[in-house]
């Protein structure tokens, strides 16, 4: 395919993916906003007002970056896992497999959908947060970088999950038993400096911690870890998951007999 044809194929798949979640916005965009608004009301205003400040910020201000990151992670993951598994389930993945589209166009088409949905939700959640408190943007470029890399990472994770999934149960197992514990224990609601040494050290094994911490640094200017280390870890995870995804599609695992 020529570069122009590759671009046309990519934009076709990307537009299709974006239209898919926009068409069902009540299922895809609205729930995150409602959930996060409830978090702000309960943990931010009702309980948070009784808590001491963390690193110079009121509790509600401290959890805003984590809340946004939580919605980016869950939306990137769930968009790609649901969409790719649905194409497998209805067999219209064959439309792509018989075409001359290379694997990397398919991967980036789905990642593009995940990025679009997670960033739209991220913006809406940020707007929702601004109704409850003042939202800070200390380092906008870092903020965009971390948001983008995180959405790519979890889109890839969702794609890998969908490749292996054989039923709709399989696409909900990882979010329930892996993703939710990792995000909730990833420093969204607290600083790891508040944890006992053992739990603080164990937290360093959780990749979500680095994303939340870097994102918090970009918004509030405070962090528990070195930002360069966090970025290096996020980029490393992205590269590893991309290589794994490319290998799975090349071998046709889960999609070709």
């Amino acid at each position, binding site marked *: *395919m*020529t570069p*122009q*044809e*590759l671009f*046309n*194929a990519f*934009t*076709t*798949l990307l537009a*299709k993916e974006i239209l898919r979640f926009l*068409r069902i916005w009540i299922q895809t965009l609205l729930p995150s906003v409602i959930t996060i608004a409830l978090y702000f009301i309960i943990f931010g205003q009702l309980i948070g007002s009784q808590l001491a400040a963390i690193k110079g910020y009121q509790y509600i201000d401290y959890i805003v970056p984590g809340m946004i990151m939580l919605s980016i992670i869950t939306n990137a993951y769930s968009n790609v896992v649901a969409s790719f598994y*649905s*194409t497998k389930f*209805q*067999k*219209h993945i*064959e*439309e*792509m*497999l*018989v*075409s*001359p*589209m*290379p694997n990397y166009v398919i991967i980036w088409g789905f990642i593009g959908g995940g990025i679009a949905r997670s960033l739209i939700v991220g913006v809406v959640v940020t707007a929702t947060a601004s109704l409850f408190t003042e939202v800070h943007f200390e380092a906008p470029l870092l903020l965009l970088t971390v948001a983008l890399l995180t959405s790519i990472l979890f889109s890839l994770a969702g794609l890998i999950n969908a490749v292996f999934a054989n039923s709709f149960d399989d696409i909900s197992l990882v979010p329930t038993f892996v993703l939710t514990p990792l995000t909730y224990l990833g420093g969204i609601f607290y600083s790891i400096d508040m944890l006992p040494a053992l739990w603080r050290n164990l937290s360093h094994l959780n990749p979500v911690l680095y994303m939340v911490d870097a994102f918090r640094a970009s918004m509030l200017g405070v962090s528990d870890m070195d930002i360069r280390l966090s970025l290096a870890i996020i980029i490393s995870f992205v590269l590893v998951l991309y290589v794994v995804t490319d290998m799975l599609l090349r*071998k*046709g695992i889960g999609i*070709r*007999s």
Partner: protein
Amino acid sequence: MIKQPAALHIDNLVKRYANNVLALDHISFNVEQGDFFALLGPNGAGKSTTLGIICSLVNKTAGKVEIFGKDIDYEFSKAKKMIGLVPQEFNFNGFEPIEEIIAHQAGYYGIERHSAKERAAYNLNMLGLWEKRRSTPRQLSGGMKRRLMIARALVHDPELLILDEPTAGVDIEIRRSMWELLQKLNADGRTIILTTHYLEEAETLCKNVGIINHGKIIIDAPMRDLLDQLKRETFIFYLSEPAEQAPTLASALCTKIDARTLEITLDHQSQLDHVFHELAALNIGVVSMRNKSNRLEELFINLVNT
């Protein structure tokens, strides 16, 4: 003169599935450019596996596949652009309008959006689906879905059209109209490979035939040559007047089915003319006649059971 490459060249193709089932056992055959080729075989013989490998839906274990001289392993993009597939099972996004399904398929082949929409409109019109362009596949009848799959397969104007049981489950009227369309596409120069369980369809449409059984090609021949292998042929004759008993004929074996119907079997070398002359000499008038069964069907059953 340089010989043109075959539309499809398959050389020593092997497929062994993960459960160790050997679906294809070193099959080789060619489909020449402009051919209308029937790939026949009983259920589980390996037809869909073969088509799946050609179209990259199934990984091959060994062997070589070339489309118009382009190896699917080394020039996959060029090879895939030349293929249009009409699969056996419906494989649409059930929630998308059919116009979008076709336009997206064109997009996957690198066709820009405006042109993709025009091609979608052209193909939907050709297949009689334009009025339904805003419907989703779930709102279409079985016959419409089959036609939609053909429209989708044609949207990038492929030189090789592969149809895996395209008329399964459609009524006779739609089947005939699909035959006409396929004949027209073939007459326009497109190479067509067809698998079907309706052997009348293969006999009517196809110039050459390959029969696959237990993962091996057992016949690869022109349809005419294959039908010539029939040693005997049986016809049903409908008479103008009732006959008291079956006449004795020198040129054929005749049995009476009922007062106005005879079953006449003659050797391949015998001529039907002689039968008519003999009946006329006996004052037996014939209103109409037909083959007792489809000729290819008789051969097919003999071949796959030996």
